[in-house]
Every structure is written in structure tokens, then in C-alpha cells.
């Protein structure tokens, strides 16, 4: 017996592979080019930057910009760089992230699986909410928080993040949940699981990819938020982005591009870590074997 036998050998340079990896590499270049420039710039001294070639690697590598961005850059009279705001950002991020995802996913779940009166109207309002530039709502939010007695507290900020994250996240969750096999819900109801039981034990575990997406959206949004951070926090609780903004966005005076780049890269590290870690949640065929259709 001659000829092919057993599993098809995987040719490394098959047409499909060349196309897939080729495209990805190409796109990666487009995506990485700015990163390259940033990293290179952050490793150069100011005089070298002034000379102009943005693509060139540094002639003289210096880590001073990174040190400065992290620990020395001044914000007003406080000269401790981004390190100052880091823990504040973490303290803001965690409750906001947990709460916003919890609220939105439960909303999405309620909207997709349980009938309640006015749910459509609720949904429409949320969607319209997604389109309002949040700055327009600044004063209403301030007034609202003031009347709730939350203005200026970290919980006020958490509430704001939760609310402004709600439209997109609710939509995200709702649409994903709605595409899960309906019989799963039925089986769980027969098995005596209630609203929360179904949500926690069935919906949540089979929707991990979408939770990963939601986490990515929220970590990015909350971590990078600057506007709400300054408006609703106080100087001692300013998030890292206020420092970042102060380092980067000075109107007058000299622009230290290398420090700016280093600061931006430093600020992006945590979301980046989250993106990388979320990989495990993007699992394949998670509902395999559930039903036959």
C-alpha cells in the first residue's frame, strides 16, 4: 500500500500558511511601526531626537527617559513621575472593572433571557446612551453625583465608569447571550436553577470569550481615562493618566519627547499585560456538545 497514509503532513510553507502568516506579518508591521518609533524615541536623548530620523535606532541608548517618566517627572511641585498615580489607578480600576462588568453582564443576561416590562425601551435608551459624547453629560453627571452625595469620592468615579460602560457592554453581552442555545436555559430552569444560578453556573462559564472582550474594553477605557479622573477624583487620588497628561500635554515649555514616549509606554503596560493574559479566555468550541441542531 503506497501513497498518503496517516495524518496529512503539515507543510510549513503551504499556500494557506503563507497567506495567513504573510498577511498577519504584514499587518503586524503596520501595527508595530508606531511602537518601534516610540520605543526608539524613548531610548534617545533629546539632542538626538532633534536630529530627526525617527526610524533610526538610538546611537546612544539611554534609559533616563524611562526613569524620569516613572519616578522623576514633575507634576506641578510633585516630582515623582507616574509612580505617584499608579496605585490610585489600580484602586480605581479594580472596583470599576468588576462592577461595570457585573452590572452590564447581568443586564445583558436579563435582556436576552428574561422578559420584563419596558425592557425594549430600556435597551433603546442604553443604545442611544452609547452615542452621547460623555463630555456633554458632564454637568448632569456632576449634579447627579452631588445629589447622591458621591461627588468627589472614589465611589462616585466607580459609578461613573460603570454607567458609561453600560451601553456598549450591555449590548455586547446581550447579543452574545442571545446566541447561546436556548435549550441550555431551559435545562437549567428545569434543574432548579434560578436567575442567579443560571447566570453564574451556566451563562458565565460558557461566555468566557465575551467576558474577556468586556474586560479588555473596560481595562483600556478605565485605565486610560483622564477626564473623569480629574473631574471626579481629588489630587491625592488622581489616576496615573493625570500624571501622564501632565508630562505629555504641557502647553508651554519644552517637550521632552523621549520622556513622553516612555511615559506612554509605561502607562500602557498594564492593559497590555491584561490583553496577553486574556488569551486563555478566548477558547475554542466552548459550547461544543451542548445541543444538536
Amino acid at each position: 500500500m503506497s501513497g498518503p497514509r496517516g495524518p496529512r503532513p503539515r507543510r510549513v510553507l503551504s499556500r494557506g500558511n503563507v497567506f495567513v502568516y504573510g498577511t498577519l506579518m504584514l499587518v503586524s508591521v503596520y501595527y508595530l511601526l508606531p511602537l518601534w518609533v516610540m520605543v526608539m524615541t524613548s531610548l534617545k536623548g533629546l539632542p538626538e531626537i532633534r536630529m530627526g530620523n525617527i526610524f533610526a535606532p538610538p546611537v546612544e541608548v539611554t534609559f533616563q527617559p524611562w526613569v524620569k517618566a516613572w519616578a522623576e517627572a514633575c507634576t506641578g511641585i510633585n516630582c515623582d513621575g507616574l509612580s505617584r498615580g499608579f496605585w490610585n489607578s489600580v484602586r480605581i480600576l479594580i472596583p470599576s472593572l468588576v462592577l461595570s462588568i457585573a452590572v452590564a453582564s447581568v443586564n445583558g443576561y436579563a435582556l436576552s433571557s428574561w422578559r420584563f416590562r419596558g425592557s425594549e425601551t430600556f435597551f433603546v435608551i442604553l443604545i442611544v446612551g452609547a452615542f452621547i459624547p460623555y463630555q456633554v453629560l458632564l454637568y448632569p453627571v456632576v449634579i447627579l453625583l452631588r445629589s447622591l452625595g458621591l461627588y468627589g469620592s472614589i465611589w462616585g468615579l466607580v459609578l461613573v465608569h460603570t454607567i458609561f460602560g453600560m451601553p456598549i457592554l450591555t449590548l455586547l453581552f446581550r447579543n452574545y447571550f442571545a446566541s447561546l442555545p436556548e435549550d441550555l436555559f431551559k435545562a437549567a430552569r428545569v434543574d432548579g436553577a434560578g436567575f442567579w444560578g443560571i447566570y453564574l453556573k451556566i451563562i458565565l462559564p460558557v461566555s468566557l470569550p465575551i467576558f474577556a472582550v468586556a474586560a479588555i474594553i473596560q481595562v483600556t477605557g478605565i485605565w486610560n481615562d483622564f477626564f473623569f479622573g480629574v473631574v471626579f477624583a481629588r489630587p491625592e487620588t488622581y489616576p496615573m493618566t493625570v500624571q501622564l497628561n501632565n508630562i505629555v500635554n504641557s502647553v508651554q515649555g519644552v517637550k521632552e519627547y523621549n520622556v513622553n514616549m516612555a511615559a506612554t509606554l509605561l502607562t500602557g503596560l498594564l492593559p497590555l499585560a491584561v490583553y496577553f493574559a486574556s488569551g486563555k479566555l478566548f477558547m475554542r468550541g466552548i459550547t461544543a456538545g451542548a445541543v444538536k441542531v
Partner: protein
Amino acid sequence: MALDSGAAHLDAAFVSVRDLTHSFGTVEVLKGLDIEVRNGEFLVLLGPSGCGKSTLLNCIAGLIEITDGQIWIGGRNVTWEEPKDRGIGMVFQSYALYPHMTVHGNLSFGLKNQRMPEDQIAARVVRVARILQIEPLLDRKPGALSGGQRQRVAIGRALVRDADVFLFDEPLSNLDAKLRAELRVELKRLHAGLGNTMIYVTHDQIEAMTLADRIAVMRDGVIQQLATPLELYDRPANLFVAGFVGSPSMSMLDGRIAGGRFHVGGQSLALDGYEGRAPGTLGAAILGLRPEHIAVAPAGVEGLSAVVELCEPMGADKLLWTDVEGRKVSVRVPVETSHPRGSRVTLAPAMGKASLFDAGTEARL
């Protein structure tokens, strides 16, 4: 035998469906359906594909919101109650296994929800897994199971629980004959032991006949007949039930009744011995004959003359497809006999087992 096991608990209606109507959008699937299931009864639902059996089970379970009517379980009107408050266990036609849980997790989920102690749960799961022969699979997820294994997990998920009413939607359809026979016996035994009420959808006539206390035959969302298996088989209430129950199915001869005889084409048969109230004379009528109630008579005996068209081996015996005056009639014959295609035989029906229907109303005479 069908009536004597489990019959002990029979009393008033335990599950009762009253005037149930359900529509999916504009498609009316259940049309004012009424059915009463006695306590401890094993009721089998039979009916053509798409007649509304699954929909009925879903309505009883409270999984779809009914358009009109009432559902009573155990003397309570549960029409508006949540599924979990109805005391039911269910096997879904599509299995609906929890994809992220192992088989063990799937089986124990319902029990955990009832806050049963861990050791009891473990004991039950093991017992059910043994019955269903899925013990080696307890740590797999549904995605790594074969079709029949999945189906068994689905059954197991219902069986582990103490439900008052079990709703089984074609639970054995994807199992091999041997396993199916074993599980049939197990189910019967469990039912006899626990005395739960069972509503069981199946397409397998043997399953229906052997398991059921009573069988309900449905068609287009309406119950056609609700009777014991024997009665259903021997005395179908109408043409539909007659044609539907029994495999291979009853042969139908359309003719006329006149002078106490049934006339079909140029031939006729005496109606002597027919168990119904067949009128002496009636315009059009239909005579139904089951293959096993027809004998191939030696030449000369009174009967219908027929031509052999096809001979199908069925394992235990053979099925002879014949043509009587242009109508198909099938006859069950022993394997040994040989009737070549095209040969002419005389068929002698046992009139005591035949069924006669009014051609207009299709009701049994």
C-alpha cells in the same frame, strides 16, 4: 402485563392539561388540547413528527409561555409557576447538556441546586451512571462524547432527581437496540419502584407498547386517542390511529359494505366475527388489516386474491407486499416460506382482529 405494574398508585389525574393552546407566532401548534395523566401512570405520547409532542412537554414543564389554557400538577394550578416549582424532571430532545461541565457535573447540577449533601449526590450520580453505562465517562465533557453517550447523559440528568413528573422526549432514540432494550427495562423498573408519573415521547412502537400504561396518539396538536396499548393496537379509534400505530403498518382497503360483506374491487369478504357495530350496509368504508392478522391461505379457502410484489426480510420473519385490486396489502409470513415475485396468493384475514372505518368521518365503526 402493561397494566399491572405501576398500576397500584393510579388514582385521580395528577397532571392535567386543560384546553391548552399554543402558537408560535401565527402557527398554531396545540389546539385546545386536553389530557389527564393519572398519578403514577406511565403515559406514552405518540404522534407524527411535528405534531406538537415536544411543545406539549415544554408547556407542561413551563418552559414556554402558553397562549391559552391551564396546566395542573398534583392538584395545583401551576400555569403561571416557574419550572423549578413544578416538581418535574425532563429529558430534552436536543439533550441540552451543559457544555462546560463534565458528565458528573451535568448529572449533579440539579441536585446541587436542591442543596443535597455531597455524599448523597455522589451516591446517586454513581448509581444512575451505572444504570446508563456511562461510568467511565464521568470526567468527560459533552463535546467528547458520542451521540448515544450524550443522550444517556441527558437521561441521567433527569433520573438523578426525585421529580414527581418525568417528561422524556425521545430519550432512547440514539441508542443501539440492545442498550435500548436494557434501558427500557431499567426505566420500567425505576418507574415501578418510585411510582412517579411519566410522560414519555417515543417513536419506537415497541417502547410504546412495552412501557406504557396508556398511550396518547396525537396529530396536529390534537389528541386522537388515549387508551391502553392493546386497545390502541386492536381497536384504533380512527383511521389515523390505525394507520399510525403498528409497524409495518396496517393495510387499508377502501371499498363498500353491502349485505354484511365488504366489497373491494371485484372481490368481497364476509364481515362475520367483526367486533364493532358494523352496519349491514354503508356506502363507502375502509377495511384495515394488520400484516400479522392475515394468513396466506391454501388455494380454495375463502379470501382475497393477491399478487406478490416484494418480499422483505425482517429478521424474525418476512413481510410480503402484495397487490389486491390495486391496493397494497402487506402480510407477515414466516421466513421459511417462499413466494416469488409475481406469484398469486390468497389472503385470509382474521376478521375478529380487523378494523372498519367510515370513509367519510374516518371513525371506527
